[in-house]
């Protein structure tokens, strides 16, 4: 089918503008990875994916649970009697058991300092859908939301594309570890007012993506009082809440509200299981609002992105297994902590510092000493070197709207231990500016591949089926990837 220029006019403005965000150079890293993906045996010199914030570290625990609980699936012999009722269930309230299990889980993740009401749990198509839904409920086209930077690159699309709402960044600085200050909020707000931009709210991510830090109580209280003062909304995206692996602990905005004078109608939480449980494929997004009108509206809007009842049923069962959940959360923290430590220590040894972080699936790496000059251009140049020469797909700070050049987000959870070593080796060599020739490099990578084969490692990507000769190398693509062909993962057909 020919696509003609005439057709461009036949589509809407939303369809033809750039607000989907995929034309950003940010995706060059993905393209580099996709055209040359690292594989321990088949392609040891390939690009290692460190731009994908995924959490597969505890799948063994989940798989064990699934094996031991066949009645949690409506398609097994044990669960088949529930098939019909679940397959029919399209009520946008969501299965009661699902809402109760999610509410309980959110409570546990918050250290059981808050009780979440299952009747306020509203579904959405992942946190992607939840954030968009929140904006649809709270702002009109042309309005704006304050978003502290650096922030998740996907917000550019999720908050703006179909809603027509704008983002006004609140730039945070390394001088105080990128804390969100009242002064910065006030300044951004005033500036927007002067430009006739109607600010309808603030959206924060806590724990922060890309920083990997949790917001402290004081900052949280300051945010709540700021929005109450200005009569604007606060959306707290708490998608990384259970990835906290050391102190200080995670404090939900729900907890902070409990002993504060504030307007509860202004406070809304976005949650998801994509990061904490590692289930991005299941599309479990949650909008939790303390405002009844918003809850009702978001619930109606959830018709556009309900969670599959099959998935609701499975997760209702899994998340209400207290023993499993407790064990999972503990193990997950442990494994994330270990992984984080290995990386940060390794980097420290070659003089690279990172923001002190205790959460998330990534760390925020300081490469400013390596910049030719402190500009975005120099950052982009350095980034291209890291992608093309060092062969690591890391994410440049500019793609998170960071106002200071030289910072990079590096994901550490989406690979196995050996790949971690390879990645660290590469960084070390790059930093120490190894002058080894290419053939030395070839020898080294061959030796690594041989060691790999010998050691018969359990890779966290699971079985050898994934590295089937007939298939392309594994690569997992996020919803943001513009790469046209579909990735490796195939159903068992």
């Amino acid at each position, binding site marked *: *089918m020919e*696509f003609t220029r005439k*057709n461009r006019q*036949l*589509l*809407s403005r939303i369809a033809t503008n750039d607000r*989907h965000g995929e034309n950003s150079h940010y995706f060059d890293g993905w393209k580099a990875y996709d055209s040359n993906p690292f594989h321990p045996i088949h392609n040891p010199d390939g690009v290692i994916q460190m731009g994908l914030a995924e959490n597969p570290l505890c799948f063994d625990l*989940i798989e064990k649970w*699934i*094996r031991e609980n066949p009645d949690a*699936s409506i*398609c097994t*012999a044990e669960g*088949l009697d529930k*098939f*019909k009722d679940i397959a*029919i269930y*399209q009520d946008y309230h969501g299965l009661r058991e699902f809402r109760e299990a999610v509410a309980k889980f959110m409570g546990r993740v918050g250290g059981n300092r808050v009780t979440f009401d299952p009747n306020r749990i509203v579904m959405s*198509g992942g946190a992607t*859908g939840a954030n*968009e839904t929140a904006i*649809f409920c709270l702002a*009109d*086209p042309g309005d704006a939301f304050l978003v502290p930077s650096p922030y998740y690159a996907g917000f550019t*699309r*999720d908050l703006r594309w179909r809603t027509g709402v704008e983002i006004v960044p609140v730039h945070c600085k390394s001088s105080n570890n990128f804390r969100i200050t009242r002064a910065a909020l006030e300044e951004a707000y005033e500036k927007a007012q002067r430009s006739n931009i109607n600010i309808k709210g603030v959206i924060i991510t806590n724990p922060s993506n890309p920083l990997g830090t949790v917001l402290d109580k004081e900052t949280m209280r300051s945010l709540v009082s700021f929005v109450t003062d200005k*009569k604007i909304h606060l959306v707290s995206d708490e998608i990384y809440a259970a990835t906290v692996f050391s102190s200080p602990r995670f404090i939900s905005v729900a907890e902070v509200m*409990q002993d504060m*004078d504030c*307007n*509860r*109608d202004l406070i809304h939480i976005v949650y998801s299981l*994509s990061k904490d449980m*590692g289930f*991005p*494929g*299941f*599309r479990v997004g949650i909008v939790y609002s303390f*405002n009844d009108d*918003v809850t009702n*509206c978001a619930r*109606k*809007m959830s018709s*556009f992105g309900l*969670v599959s009842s099959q998935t609701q049923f*499975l997760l209702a069962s899994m998340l209400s297994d207290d023993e499993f959940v407790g064990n999972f959360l503990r193990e997950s923290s442990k494994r994330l902590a270990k992984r984080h430590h290995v990386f940060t220590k390794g980097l420290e040894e070659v003089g690279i510092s990172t923001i002190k972080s205790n959460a998330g699936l990534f760390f925020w790496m300081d490469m400013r000493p390596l910049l030719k000059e402190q500009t975005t251009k120099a950052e982009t140049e350095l980034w291209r070197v890291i992608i093309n020469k060092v062969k690591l797909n890391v994410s440049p700070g500019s793609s998170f709207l960071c106002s200071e050049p030289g910072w990079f987000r590096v994901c550490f959870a989406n690979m196995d231990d050996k790949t971690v070593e390879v990645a660290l080796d590469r960084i070390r060599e790059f930093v120490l500016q190894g002058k080894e020739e290419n053939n030395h490099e070839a020898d080294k990578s061959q030796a690594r591949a041989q060691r790999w084969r010998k050691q018969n490692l359990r890779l966290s*990507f699971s079985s050898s089926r994934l590295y089937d000769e007939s298939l392309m190398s594994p690569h*997992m*693509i*996020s*919803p943001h990837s513009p790469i*046209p*062909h*579909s990735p*490796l*993962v*195939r*159903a*068992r*057909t």
Partner: protein
Amino acid sequence: MAIEIEQPRVGLSKVAVSKTHGEDSPYFAGWKAYDENPYHETSNQSGVIQMGLAENQVSFDLLEKYLEEHSEASSWGKGTPGFRENALFQDYHGLKSFRQAMASFMEQIRGGRAKFDPDRIVLTAGATAANELLTFILADPGDALLIPTPYYPGFDRDLRWRTGVNIVPIHCDSSNNFQITPEAMEAAYQSAESMNLKVRGILITNPSNPLGATIQRSALEQILDFAVNKNIHLVSDEIYSGSTFSSSEFISIAEILETRGYKDAERVHIVYSLSKDLGLPGFRVGTIYSYNDQVVTTARRMSSFTLISSQTQHLLACMLSNKEFSENYIKTNRERLSKRYDMIIKGLKKAGIECLKGNAGLFCWMNLSPLLEKPTRESELALWKVILNEVKLNISPGSSCHCSEPGWFRVCFANMSEQTLEIALERIHKFMEQRKRN
């Protein structure tokens, strides 16, 4: 404990405070009555029978049988990997195997008379999301889509609410069995123009909800010609395509395009879902099939807001790619729906009620206009309330489907057992007898 402070009502968006979500319509009021007093075969025999819900429960046993025999379709932990890859899979292209299975299923439903390319299939969480998404892509806020009446009440929300797009009705009436005519389309177009609304497309549901009838080939040709003439889009919601009682009677817009050598295809988009044909509304499986590359690319990006659970994609990929299963399912489902339809038509006829001649869907289009006091919407609603509160049947009044002729009602027949349908028919019979006596 927080101190309660009197706060002024805080502002929400215009979308949030509007009524365009449509839930205040009588279509939904009937549901409420049902929820409060639902019929049950043993424990509440005098309750309200739900006949306003277009669900397909007649073929579940076929699905259950498949799962019993192929439990590995969805089990992960039996020594095979797959769970973690599946749980991580969030690519908006969707599982290739699932798209292939959907394309093949859609072809089978059309008796192989049209071909579908899996790479043109975009996945969304239900047809609800598919229709909204297409509207975002094809029209700007303030523009209009032309929709033949009567139409599915949900369109008022799905196509208009968050998109800001208007619906301008193409009026159809019983004088020609509610068929869509070029004159009616032209009238609607002019009407939109006179309101200064830019028409961006025409959206048809084929087979029709609520009519329960397929659109004839000649009408489809005229509709496509109209779209070409006005240089607008044509969206064909074919969600009930697998629910036609006889395979040969459904003609998809895909077939029309095929015979035209795909000329003008780039303005045509098909919506499909498994909610009706397979009876799986809870699984949220919708698709957009577009012949326009730009639409496919953009729709795919937008589907990020409404992807199908990878767990569900995996299950259905297995099920639908099993040709033996899918062929048998399609055939058996058609037969059972046809049987149900015959049953209700016969029963209504016995009670002195005529219906539009239908050949598809999960409902029939019943004509109660002879019972109206006056040929007005108010009379229709009054009659509807009587049927809801006295006869205790939740059926959908034509006005909620924007029918311009009062007195028609949509009656669903596939979301209950045969026994319940018998009881419903008995109640109608009794009601009509009573009216005759009075």
